[in-house]
């Protein structure tokens, strides 16, 4: 390939990058875990829509998903907008992931359908770090809108999919335009030598991500700075565990 062609290629790449919007200008947010950051291209893309789904015992309350999302929001810099309809969020719990109450502005909608416009309104504000939304219904078109709004400003959209009935649970499985979709389920934590509880463990599943294969990790929950960790006793065999699960299903 001669130098002229290379220049032309670089030029085309630049043009494509320009078409694809601003999301490529900012670096993704690393998880600080090699297993995740190598699997995903560098970490979680900023200026994109991410979906979180809870799977577990009391999944309608989305306890671990909330902490997982708060951990991501805490590691971004700047204020966070949290759009919700139910008042079951407990702010002192978010502090466990390092999300300081001064950073969070809450917008409480009366009806579910008011939430998506609120998220979009937040995404159009460049000064925000992230917009967190608790949503039951999100159509392909609505998610596309949010994704475009996030791309335009570089604000990260984190959507917690919540559901209260079985019909709504099925709705959550429908495809959306989100860049990644995660499923978080609690996992048994390490047995402590004395009575008590160790750090929480989650089974974090990456269900969907453009250009990346789905994968499952067992991780330790967010610490006070929102960072996840690889369990010490599982560090060398998390792949095998995932393979076993894949073979079983």
């Amino acid at each position: 390939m001669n130098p002229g062609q290379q220049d032309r290629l670089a030029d085309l790449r630049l043009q494509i990058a320009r078409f694809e919007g601003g999301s490529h200008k900012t670096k993704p947010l690393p998880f600080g875990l090699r297993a995740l950051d190598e699997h995903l291209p560098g970490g979680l893309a900023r200026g994109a829509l991410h979906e979180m789904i809870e799977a577990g015992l009391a999944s309608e309350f989305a306890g671990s998903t909330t902490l997982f999302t708060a951990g991501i929001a805490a590691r971004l810099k700047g204020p966070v907008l949290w759009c919700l309809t139910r008042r079951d969020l407990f702010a002192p719990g978010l502090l466990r992931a390092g999300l300081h109450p001064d950073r969070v502005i809450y917008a409480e909608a009366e009806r579910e359908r008011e939430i998506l416009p609120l998220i979009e309104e937040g995404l159009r504000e460049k000064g925000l770090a992230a917009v967190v939304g608790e949503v039951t219904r999100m159509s392909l078109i609505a998610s596309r809108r949010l994704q475009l709004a996030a791309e335009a400003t570089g604000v990260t959209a984190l959507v917690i999919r919540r559901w209260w009935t079985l019909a709504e649970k099925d709705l959550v499985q429908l495809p959306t335009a989100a860049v990644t979709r995660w499923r978080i389920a609690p996992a048994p934590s390490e047995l402590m030598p004395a009575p008590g509880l160790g750090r929480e463990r989650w089974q974090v599943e990456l269900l969907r991500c453009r250009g990346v294969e789905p994968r499952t990790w067992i991780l330790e929950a967010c610490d006070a700075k929102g960072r996840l960790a690889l369990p010490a006793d599982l560090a060398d065999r998390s792949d095998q565990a995932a393979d076993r699960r894949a073979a079983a299903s």
Partner: protein
Amino acid sequence: MTVHTVGSRRVVRAACAAAQETGLHVGMALAQAQALVPNLHAVEAAPDEDEASLRELARWAIGYSPVVAPDRPDGLWIDIAGVAHLFGSEEELLADLTSRITRQGIAAKAAVADAPGAAWAVARYGAGGVVPTGRTVDAVATLSIRGLRIAADKLSALHRLGIERVGQLAAMPRAPLVRRFGRDVALRLDQALGHAFEPITPLIPKETPTASCAFAEPIARLEDLKSVLLRLAKDLCRQLERRSEGVRRLDLLFQRVDQKSACIRIGTARANRDAAHLAKLFDERLQTIDPGFGIEEIVLVASKVEPLTETQTQVRGLGDAEAEEADMGQLVDRLGARIGMRRVYRLAPVPSLVPERMVRRIPALAPPTGSVWPENLPRPTRLLNPPEPVVATALLPDHPPRFFVWRKVRHTVAKADGPERITPEWWNGDKGSAARDYYRVETEQGGRFWIFRDAPTADGGRWWMHGFFS
């Protein structure tokens, strides 16, 4: 009680509730009143002062709605169409309004109805409160005809015919009614029943910055409204710039061709005079305006202003902390215009350990509190409010449970931590509620719950589910 002079007689003009209980009534001669109540305290009426204070009250009431008009001598019109949701509901608005007026030492009665005339009658001669939409006729029919705002001589003529109630009057044939009592009785009747429209001319205090635009040809298209709105906003912002003020609350009044009016009110979280931003706040609600046959006049009123000193125009992208701060103000405005300013908030820590009391709401743009909850307390991310009862079995008294049944599902506890005792806070008014022993439990599947026992097992403590870690 106040008195005034009618001809050569001294007549009671107004009497407070206590005076009315003793048998005094408006229109009674002073001599007769003094005979009834020996140490009667009578003050010369000052109609001018009364009117001035009524205007003052009307200006205060602009805090509720842009369309407020004094109704001499003792009433106020407030058009709450399109603003009630800012207070939650019409009932809440009414309760808030009356309680605040009462706290100022003014006896007040208020009513909400579809038609101004109906509200007038229900507030004065009915039970007050909110008349549901479409029930105006039912609410007014049983009221006295004095609630119709008709002249005293016509009132007595009607009384002589044995007509006491609005319903009776409404049942009379229309043509003889008009012939006998004149057109205004019929009009008042229609206004009270909501059949005839009655405009309320809003009181706009003189010093309030306003921008208005009247059209030779009525306009109705949304795009036209938007462009006019932007022009008005620019005009208003120029005025405000001269006065170095910024808007905190903005009212947009529409005058329709058929004399009906509509209004939209928006609030801003901090003083602002960015015309484009202000015009944008109306966008969402502008679609709800029904232009009817066309809009004749649009008035933009800055009903609440605050001093705003000149600030340097920020350049985006310089990464200035101050610029981000300003942006939040605009974002909060836009969110507030959609769902109401009260629903946009931040949560601040309260120095308390009772979970239900650990947070309080503060305005979204309040200065950072800097304080946090104690970080060493493990707290769930979701709280059940109120807590739900669970059936739990502990192996030993005062041990964490081994099994529990919550929402008909049985969970086996694998690991647990606790108890963490949270005692009632008597200084916050907790009475009798026992100390709670909180346990963090992890089930075999890994789900973590926050459950508590409301008394020691020996005292018959019951178990409750209160929160979710996962």
